[in-house]
């Protein structure tokens, strides 16, 4: 969440809210990213083992991601309102696992919950920590829609850069020399 790495409590569950999927948005996403007949054509979808139109798993996951981003922004505002400086979250290096469990049909309401299950300082990016997150999506009948094991970055508040890195950073700010020291792209 938008908390400093040090402030994140392992095993605390964050409710991310719900989303109701319409046939229109299921088809729109399907046509753009997952054009298989059971995601784009309600008539043809009746012949599938789903018996009708269902959302692409990537659609329900993308909406879950949006819910997480909205929750991060809300937490940021809440902390600012309390006069606190919110933490910084960064891009994600990946997803360890994603299991699609139950199909999402038009009219279904999916409720998302995020739990940080572990954290450690990053080995590759100084000043940042890695968060291991679980995301569960459940439909209005209580059935699990998907379960995800995600990885995210969060900035360390109390990080002091080692002296050799501070010297290197200062050197890269010098014109000319900075270009030489930048890793080639």
């Amino acid at each position: 969440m938008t908390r400093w790495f040090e402030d994140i409590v392992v095993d605390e569950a964050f409710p991310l809210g719900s989303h109701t999927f319409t046939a229109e948005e299921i088809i729109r996403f399907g046509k753009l990213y997952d054009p298989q007949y059971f995601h784009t054509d309600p008539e043809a979808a009746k012949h599938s083992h789903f018996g009708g139109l269902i959302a692409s798993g990537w659609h329900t996951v993308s909406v879950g991601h949006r819910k997480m981003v909205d929750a991060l922004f809300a937490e940021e505002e809440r902390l600012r309102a309390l006069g606190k400086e919110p933490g910084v979250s960064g891009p994600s290096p990946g997803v360890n696992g994603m299991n699609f469990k139950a199909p999402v049909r038009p009219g279904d309401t999916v409720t998302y919950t995020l739990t940080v299950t572990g954290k450690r300082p990053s080995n590759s990016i100084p000043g940042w920590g890695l968060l291991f997150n679980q995301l569960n999506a459940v439909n209005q009948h209580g059935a699990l829609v998907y379960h995800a094991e995600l990885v995210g970055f969060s900035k360390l508040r109390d990080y002091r850069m080692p002296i050799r890195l501070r010297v290197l950073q200062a050197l890269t700010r010098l014109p000319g020399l900075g270009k030489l020291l930048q890793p080639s792209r």
Partner: protein
Amino acid sequence: MPTNPITANRRHYEDLAIGEVIDLGQVTVSKEMIISFASEFDPFPFHLDEAAAKASLLGGLAASGWQTAGLSLRMLADSFLATIASMGGLGFSDLKWKKPVMVGDSIGGTVTISALRRSHGHPERGIVTLDFDIRNQKSEPVMSMRLANLIELRDPLVPLVEAAE
């Protein structure tokens, strides 16, 4: 034997082989595509705003990792999933975003069938494991993942025999 008129003439489980490589073709990612996806699903400033993106870990306006995954899936759907009797995805593992996809980058690559097995609970279903190797125009790896997808059997009455690995 197949009863689904939509997929009857497509390739079924029996028609696939481990080691088959699917060429995904390429897609070029525009600024408009990045902002359109990010506005709906990933509205972090580093996916929406060039100045904010330059100051972030990404170093410039980059596509949401979920959009990279979605575009990869789209290429697989066009080149493979729409040509087989697909029954949808079961999930994926080991998705790694290795390098950001920046405005103007072209991504493409290959998907390799790495495993095939029949479902134990549903004799009419098989599971195909698909390994993604997504690269940019400089051939640098940008994303990899392993997807498990269900596929219809042409003949579910054939007894389930575990193939030797």
